[in-house]
């Protein structure tokens, strides 16, 4: 009996000690399981959130792509519009600065044309000023020679059109009359825009100095001196325009004379380009009107090759036709230009009136 009691007591003690321990372990296990459930629930919630976020990120990416595409599109449109604006700026400049209609005093070649020829001349001028180089001229009913004469006259009268190539590069005709002509610019509109700005900048300082002078005679002399001092006679491809003389400071006779006419036109002194021969070769020089009389003026020959840069002479400055006849002969077209009958300055010693030094003029050109 005693042993049974001890046995039961021992078992009871074991149960009393073991049960709480087991219960504790069980509780801890359940707590851990609950925590696992909680963690899993949180993970599931986060996963749902991520899925939604991924969906919204996808939508965001699409929006971003669309926005980036729009940016590219806008930038392309902007570039296009800026180019269009630059084009209009150039056209407006051409039209308002140098493209203003010239008066009769400044269009000696136009004055030689028939009424129909003058209309064609005006039409071609507006055409190139609008940067168009194909013109329907059928309504004028003119021959190729007549069209070429009007076009040649236009470029002689207006040296500011330096970007227009001097040739009629193509044409169509019917019954001997020209229907369309194709002209050509020397470069694309972007290049022309830059050249006009450069040309204007190079000429403006010279014009400002000349405009400050008192008389037309002083202005004529100043421009003569300036070109003779700063331009070098050079053969080449691009040496026939006012641009080549004024900006590049390199020209042949045509460039010298057209630059001179350009400055004169801008100073309001009538002047024109005159062609013919001199020294047995084709040559171009200038006619300029002072006090109602025209005079010959050859800047090229006053800047002979042997002379140093910055030096010049007055051997062909404001000469009469009679005085020039010893060396210069006008061609058929130029013979129709105003005659230079006045001998007023034939014997003038121009060095006495020398107003600006060569170094001064070279500084101005630089």
């Amino acid at each position, binding site marked *: 009996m005693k042993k049974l009691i001890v046995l039961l007591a*021992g078992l009871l003690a074991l149960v009393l000690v*073991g049960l709480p321990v087991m219960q504790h372990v069980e509780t801890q296990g359940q707590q851990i*399981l609950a925590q696992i459930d909680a963690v899993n629930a949180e993970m599931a919630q986060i996963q749902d959130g991520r899925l939604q976020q991924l969906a919204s990120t996808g939508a965001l990416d699409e929006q971003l792509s669309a926005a980036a595409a729009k940016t590219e599109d806008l930038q392309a449109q902007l570039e296009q519009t800026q180019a269009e604006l630059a084009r209009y700026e150039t056209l407006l400049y051409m039209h308002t600065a140098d493209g203003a*209609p010239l008066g009769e005093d400044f269009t000696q070649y136009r004055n030689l044309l028939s009424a129909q020829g003058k209309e064609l001349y*005006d039409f071609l001028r507006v055409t190139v000023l609008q940067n168009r180089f194909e013109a329907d001229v059928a309504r004028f009913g003119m021959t190729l020679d007549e069209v070429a004469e009007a076009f040649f006259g236009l470029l002689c009268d207006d040296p500011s059109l330096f970007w227009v190539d001097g040739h009629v590069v193509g044409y169509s005709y019917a019954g001997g009359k020209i229907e369309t002509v194709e002209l050509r610019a020397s470069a694309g509109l972007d290049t022309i825009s830059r050249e006009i700005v450069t040309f204007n900048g190079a000429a403006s300082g010279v014009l400002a100095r000349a405009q400050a002078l008192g008389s037309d005679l002083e202005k004529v002399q100043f421009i003569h001196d300036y070109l003779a001092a700063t331009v070098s006679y050079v053969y080449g491809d691009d040496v026939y325009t006012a641009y080549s003389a004024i900006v590049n400071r390199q020209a042949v006779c045509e460039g010298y004379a057209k630059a001179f006419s350009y400055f004169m036109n801008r100073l309001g002194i009538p002047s024109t380009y005159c062609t013919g021969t001199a020294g047995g070769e084709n040559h171009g020089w200038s006619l300029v009107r002072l006090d109602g009389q025209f005079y010959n003026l050859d800047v090229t020959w006053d800047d002979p090759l042997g002379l140093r840069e910055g030096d010049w002479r007055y051997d062909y400055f404001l000469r009469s036709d009679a005085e020039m006849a010893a060396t210069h002969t006008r061609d058929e077209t130029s013979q129709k230009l105003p005659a230079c009958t006045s001998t007023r300055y034939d014997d003038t010693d121009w060095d006495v009136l020398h107003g600006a030094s060569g170094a001064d003029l070279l500084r101005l050109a630089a």
Partner: protein
Amino acid sequence: MKGKKTKGYRWLFVVLVLLVAMAGGLTLLGRANQQLQAHQARLDTARQQLAELKQENAQDAGEAQAAQRKLEETERQNDALQSELDALRRQVADYADRYGALTDQSISTEAG
């Protein structure tokens, strides 16, 4: 003598029963403990996964915020570009009008 021997066996039996009961209890406790440790390991793994998930989530949220900011910035840039474009177009239209008027005037002047 025989009675003492029998008593001794009975006590031995009692001790054995108690020992077996203790061993059984300890075995149960050990198993429970093992299970508890396995649960703890699962919990640790789950927590680690949760931490990683949270980190990824935070990273995604950061990227989404950056994308949102970029979108807003791009839209602002587009608005500015559009305004600039509109202004330029107005200027082009103005220039076109001025140029049209000039060429009309020029044609009429030169024709006259």
